[in-house]
């Protein structure tokens, strides 16, 4: 298979009052593992249950309770690592990150600071056909999610919901390889796409099942290249971390705001403080989350309740052998095998369900025609109804049937659109519908000829004009189509008109 080749996009440049500035961005994406049970307990992870319904003794940190690892979650992290061409660490370990908060019953989060399960990998972030950024992934580690504190239900009390407490998260940490707000959003989009292909995370950002901490710094043009050559971060500016972003749009707005804030500080002769900030979407600004005095000392240390996590290469190999075809491979294959444009291939592979649908339609048919029908007609129609591909009233076989009728010249493109609408709204076998409703294209030249002869006989003046100016032949074509209710094969009509007018 041919690999698609890419050019690197240009970094975003923001003009400050004094200089031009570039952005350097790294993301820590928290992706909730799609598992039925939590990372270290058997409690359910079902979203939307009554508060505190999904809580085991372990989650509530009752005295003497101990965590035991959920192997399924480990498998999902490995699967994700493999999909990012990352190094899988056969030996990893869990650490405790200590801090007090009511929605953190243990008083510590179990995470993997020192020895993550997944090491270096990479993601190709597509920006436009032929243009993509290769973003390094530093690591993926497994950790527990926290619960939810509710402060606005009562003037004097706070409430805690531990349903999410202990749910498995994969923290996917990128290198500072992202060079603009759009790239950041595209990175999250691509990562989300891969996770959804794998089924390791549902990517639901609204529910908080996928969210990102965004690290932003600024530098003068040329500095980033020096950092790349040397690996020395001192060539870059001081970074600020914007916590807990769960919308592509806000990620971009927050980065844009934060970069301009930093530029203003530096150009004003000040220094950017390394700190954690929150994005306020209502005001479109970032704010410092806590002062330096309040900065946490997490006192990380290896969790003595858990043995190091040791996995076998054979198990990793087994997981690898069951990886699905991933977006990049699929896109490349669609381009190569179906002759699609990279753009169409990208659209069709954005969601694996779409790609599967398309392939069923395209198999044994003209790939480009299938792509046109899936992208323009089907997606457009579904969008109008606010439906996803899984709710499509028309099956791949039905859509394929419509396309077959076009390819065999049984119906015209125009009739095909009508037919599509009928199948979409009423269902049924397209060929049967065409038959029953007499929608078949008239390819019988005799019938077309008869109709044409009649028109020629009735319009001698037009015949004369058209014979002098062949461009006017179209009028006869139109008349024939009208006379046959649009069912005449346009190709056949064109041929006959040209022939007859020649005399």
């Amino acid at each position, binding site marked *: 298979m041919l690999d698609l080749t890419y050019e690197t996009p240009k970094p975003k440049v923001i003009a400050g009052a004094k200089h031009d500035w570039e952005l350097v961005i790294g993301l820590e994406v928290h992706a909730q593992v799609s598992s039925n049970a939590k990372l270290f307990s058997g409690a359910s992870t079902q979203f939307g249950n009554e508060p505190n319904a999904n809580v085991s003794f372990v989650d509530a940190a*009752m005295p003497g309770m101990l965590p035991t690892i959920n192997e399924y979650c480990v498998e999902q992290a490995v699967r994700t690592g493999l999909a990012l061409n990352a190094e899988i660490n056969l030996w990893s370990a869990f650490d405790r990150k200590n801090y007090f908060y009511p929605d953190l019953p243990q008083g510590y989060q179990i995470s993997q600071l020192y020895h993550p399960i997944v090491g270096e990998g990479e993601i190709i972030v597509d920006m436009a056909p032929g243009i993509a950024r290769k973003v390094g992934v530093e690591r993926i580690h497994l950790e527990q999610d926290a619960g939810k504190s509710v402060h606005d239900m009562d003037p004097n009390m706070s409430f805690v919901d531990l349903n999410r407490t202990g749910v498995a998260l994969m923290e996917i940490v990128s290198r500072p390889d992202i060079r603009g707000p759009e790239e950041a959003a595209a990175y999250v989009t691509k990562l989300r796409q891969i996770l959804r292909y794998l089924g390791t995370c549902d990517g639901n950002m609204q529910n908080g099942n996928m969210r990102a901490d965004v690290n932003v710094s600024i530098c003068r043009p040329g500095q980033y290249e020096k950092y790349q050559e040397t690996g020395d971060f001192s060539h870059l500016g001081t970074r600020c971390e914007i916590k807990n972003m769960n919308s592509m749009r806000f990620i971009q707005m927050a980065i844009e705001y934060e970069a301009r804030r930093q530029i203003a500080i530096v150009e004003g002769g000040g220094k950017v403080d390394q700190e954690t900030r929150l994005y306020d979407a209502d005001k479109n600004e970032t704010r410092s989350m806590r002062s330096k005095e309040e900065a946490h000392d997490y006192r990380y240390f290896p969790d003595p309740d858990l043995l190091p996590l040791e996995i076998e290469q054979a198990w990793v190999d087994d997981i690898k052998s069951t990886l699905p075809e991933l977006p990049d491979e699929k896109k490349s294959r669609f381009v190569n095998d179906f002759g699609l444009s990279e753009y169409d291939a990208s659209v069709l592979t954005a969601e694996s369900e779409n790609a599967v649908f398309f392939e069923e339609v395209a198999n044994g048919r003209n790939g480009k025609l299938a792509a046109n029908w899936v992208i323009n007609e089907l997606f457009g129609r579904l969008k109008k109804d606010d439906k996803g591909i899984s709710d499509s009233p028309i099956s791949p076989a039905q859509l394929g049937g419509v396309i077959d009728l076009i390819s065999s010249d049984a119906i015209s493109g125009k009739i095909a659109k009508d037919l599509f609408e009928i199948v979409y709204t009423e269902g049924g076998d397209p060929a049967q519908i065409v038959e029953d409703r007499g929608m078949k294209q008239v390819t019988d030249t005799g019938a077309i000829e008869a109709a044409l002869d009649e028109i020629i006989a009735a319009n001698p003046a037009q015949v004369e004009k058209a014979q002098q100016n062949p461009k006017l032949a179209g009028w006869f074509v139109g008349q024939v189509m009208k006379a046959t209710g649009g069912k005449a094969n346009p190709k056949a009509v064109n041929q006959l008109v040209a022939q007859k007018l020649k005399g």
Partner: protein
Amino acid sequence: MTDLNKLTLADARDKLRAKEITSVELTESCLAAVEKSGELNAFVHNTPEIALTQAKAADARLAEGDAPAMCGLPIGVKDLFCTKGVPSQAASRILEGFLPEYESTVTQNLFDAGSVMLGKLNMDEFAMGSSNETSVYGNAVNPWRRGNDDAKLTPGGSSGGSAAAVAADICLAATGTDTGGSIRQPAAFTGIVGIKPTYGRCSRWGVVAFASSLDQAGPMTKSVRDAAIMLEAMAGHDAKDSTSAELAVPNFEAMLTGDIKGKKIGIPKEYRMDGMPAEIVKLWEDGTAMLKAAGAEIVDISLPHTKYALPAYYVIAPAEASSNLARYDGVRYGHRATLAQGDGITEMYEKTRAEGFGHEVKNRVMIGTYVLSAGFYDAYYNRARRVRALIKKDFDDVFAAGVDAILTPATPSAAFGLGEMNDADPVKMYLNDVFTVTVNLAGLPGISVPTGMDSQGLPLGLQLIGRPWEEGDLLNTAYALENAAGFVAKPSQWW
């Protein structure tokens, strides 16, 4: 028959099986002893209804000839074990009113083996202490006294209530836990047997955690045979504890032959501390001679990193404790401070923990927080972990050289007076663990066996340290030592 409470587990078991006595009789005898033992303050929560229900059930099983190892045998349970529906407070105010909705694996194993629970036993708060004086219930008292002196002595700690109760024949045996010596030191102070098994032999699930990488449960009994019987019932793999070993539990009692001919016993020179009391030196020499007389080969060995063990222990244990005790925050269970108008979550934490934890626990939480904090982690915690690895290697080397067990004193002295250490440097109290912490750091099994008395008539114990997972062999060596020492003294009943 009177004084059934004075029986050993083995004798009581045999009498029960021979239908000479019933479990209800045995249990009632113990419950009466519990009632009379107020001055010892060993039991902090009595469960007579549970005991009698379990005793009746045991009698029914005995009648059917279905009598598991501990069937009908009344025991006490250290307050550190969570027992379903029964107060389980780790002797701390912060767990005031806490009633677990679950049963610890070890107590469940004991119940499955037919044990009868008389109640919960006193201990140092969160198992932090060597004298039982940090308990929210007040200290337990050693049934032993110095000659005719009325001064109350410590039963040791942290399993002080367990030791006092077994030594005073209030129960036939008790569970203990040992993080740095909390089974072996009180056993030595009260003239009983206590074994800390290999780390991972007993499940920690449902046992309130002090220092997770060091904590192990074990039995405290009147004899080595009893220790073998009870350990077998407590131990076993538990999928709910990731650090629990997936190993079959041997029949320990069957391994008690008393034959130790040809066994190599190591005498570590580093345990001969400066200023060691002559009585302890003699006890150790006598023990060595007894094992030699029983046919063992005595070899001098070196455990060169021993002197670093206590400092390493007092970094690692508080570090883990500071994190393990973070869950006691007043949010979900146990004590919560009354808050003033306008107090927020920080005040709730601060006031709750200030009121709920005692002085020693606060000390250790602060030490632990300090040694894990940014800038100090490498200097303290990481260095202590490296020391720990070296200590383990010391033992590995000695065992690799063919040594079967190591003989040391269990404690640097006999039981001391309650309150005697009040004004002392806390390090002096920590020195109680000097012979025992190495075993926890290395994860090895260690057993304390009473082998002699000091000049004031107080019991003294020796410690045997065994190879990992070879508790059976260790118990057999201890059995030979017990036979040779012939320690049969009992405290005279003054309570």
